[in-house]
């Protein structure tokens, strides 16, 4: 069963499903319309990453893949934040700061939450979860 088949056939329930799709926008282009309630577009503040993110936003909008939220990840300063906000000025943008805890977790093959549950990036993503829960009434 492919990701597309599975995601479009999950029964309605209170369960929160977090689907980490393949890198790029391939799965998104094949996902049947209206398969998900929310699309999170993760971008680094780099031109290539922003470019892929803009294409993802376009496809998710056209195919009605729910509410679209952009996550500006690895943001180091105000310039980074401004660059992402300018590229996605029609959408909600949530800022996740660059954080050595995430790099350390990657190296260990561990979850950032287990390395430091109070790390700035972890707190920002926890805030994103609260925001999504509020906006969708979950």
């Amino acid at each position, binding site marked *: 069963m492919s990701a597309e088949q599975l995601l479009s056939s999950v029964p309605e329930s209170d369960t929160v499903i977090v689907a980490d799709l393949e890198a790029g926008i391939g799965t998104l282009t094949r996902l049947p319309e209206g398969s*998900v309630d929310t699309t999170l577009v993760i971008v680094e503040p780099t031109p290539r990453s922003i470019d892929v993110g803009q294409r993802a936003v376009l496809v998710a909008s056209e195919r009605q893949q729910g509410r679209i939220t952009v996550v500006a990840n690895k943001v180091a300063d105000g310039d980074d934040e401004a660059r992402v906000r300018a590229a996605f000025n029609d959408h909600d943008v949530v800022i*996740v700061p660059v954080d050595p805890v995430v790099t350390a977790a990657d190296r260990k093959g561990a979850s950032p939450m287990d390395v430091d549950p109070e790390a700035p990036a972890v707190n920002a993503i926890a805030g994103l979860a609260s925001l999504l829960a509020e906006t969708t009434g979950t």
Partner: protein
Amino acid sequence: MKIAVVGKGGSGKTSVSGVLARSFARSGHNVVGLDCDTNPNLGLSLGVGDLETERLLSLRDQIDEDEQKHAHTWDDILDAYGTDAPDGVRLTVVNRIDNPEPD
């Protein structure tokens, strides 16, 4: 709520997905992490470790083989091909990627 997480390779989408899933679980939600990436590492970001992440990968082929015998339901997939991650997140992998993008 079904959430699709997308982005360029290297953007950190798997780290965000893992922390997001556990954050929902810690606030009392029933959560499933679905690893659809061609390079599946969501297990690591959720904190299940190397060995369990590898074991899940080996199950992907099994899903395909078994599907020849009977069609899977969502619950089958979660029960038979998933694992328990910290904070009560259930993690499973999706096997077949039809046209993976290189990046």
